């Protein structure tokens, strides 16, 4: 299947790949917090999605872009680690074979907010069926979703919910997935991918 190089370019805007492994074990940092540097080895595949370095992009006409994205995400992984006190961290991009569905994945050995926080909205005042943004839970996974405006009293249409972020966390690990493409319209599917990554890492 021919891979459109414009879809490869999407990754240059800050999506992700190529994990950088940071470190070795638990260390005490300068603020007195224990930092887990145990390396993170993201799986080569999650659901139907391949880790970006496993995708054959030779037919795209721009295989150089894949290498650029791999390098960028190695640097992003270092920045993510710095943001969490030096904990092991990985920024990865996964994609379907034609690159039309992509998952930007961030994994780090530190806790994060759970459930994810979204501010309160008085949507009923605007006669809407749902707030424009809400947090939904799927088992252990919390998702922030954007809801298309639906008048109060009407059922939201199919595919009217778009996933911004799904996250699962413990005191020692966080897995975050940001979907690109139609997959975003199915938060439960995105949440299942978070669980798959979680099970592959812990």
């Amino acid at each position, binding site marked *: 299947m021919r891979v459109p190089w414009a879809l490869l370019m999407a990754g*240059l*805007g*800050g*999506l*992700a790949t190529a994990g950088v492994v940071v470190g070795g074990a638990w260390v005490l940092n300068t*603020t*007195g*917090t224990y930092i887990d540097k145990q390396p993170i080895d993201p799986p080569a595949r999650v659901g139907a999605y391949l880790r970006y370095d496993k995708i054959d992009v030779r037919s795209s006409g721009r295989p150089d872009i894949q290498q*650029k994205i791999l390098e*960028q*995400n190695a*640097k*992003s992984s*270092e*920045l*993510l680690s*710095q*943001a*969490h*006190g030096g904990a092991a961290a990985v*920024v990865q991009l996964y994609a379907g074979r034609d690159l039309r569905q992509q998952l930007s994945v961030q994994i780090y050995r530190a806790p*994060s*907010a*759970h*459930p*994810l*926080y*979204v*501010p*309160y*909205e*008085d949507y009923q*005042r605007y006669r809407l069926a749902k707030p424009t943004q809400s*947090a939904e839970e799927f088992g252990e996974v919390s998702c922030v979703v954007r809801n298309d405006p639906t008048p109060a009293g009407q059922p939201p249409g199919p595919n009217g919910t778009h996933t911004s972020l799904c996250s699962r966390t413990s005191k020692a690990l966080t897995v975050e997935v940001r979907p690109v493409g139609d997959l975003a319209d199915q938060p439960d599917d995105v949440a299942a991918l978070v669980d798959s990554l979680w099970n592959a890492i812990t």
Partner: protein
Amino acid sequence: MAKPVVERTLKAMQESTKRLSESHGGAGALFAHYADNKLESNFMVVAYRDRSADPLFVPYVNPDDLGLAKPQQTVERYGSVSCLVMNDPTPQGQTPAAGSARAAKCSRSSGALTVEITPDGGDHSPKQVAELVDEVWASVS
């Protein structure tokens, strides 16, 4: 400000504070909306007794790949505060114009407390917002 508007704003602050606390395991939390007298300049202040990312994280982007002088999003440090900054696109080789960098969010965090300010409307330099974060930090820590 009309009374119903004040009441609605206060209710939103209370409900958002409750959610914020829940997101951090029941830790003490505050969501507050600040505005100037003309309501032209607004800030959302979030504080919770828990740690968060520091510095803030944005994925690495090489501006050369996009033909820009700077990435569209950067993280800048002002003392103990880190700010997520939105940069107006400036072609490579040119100097970004004054006022072309705006704070999207500024945050200060320790192992036990986080203070974040998100400007809503108005033109706020990252440095200005960082100073406000320090001011809130000093009053709640």
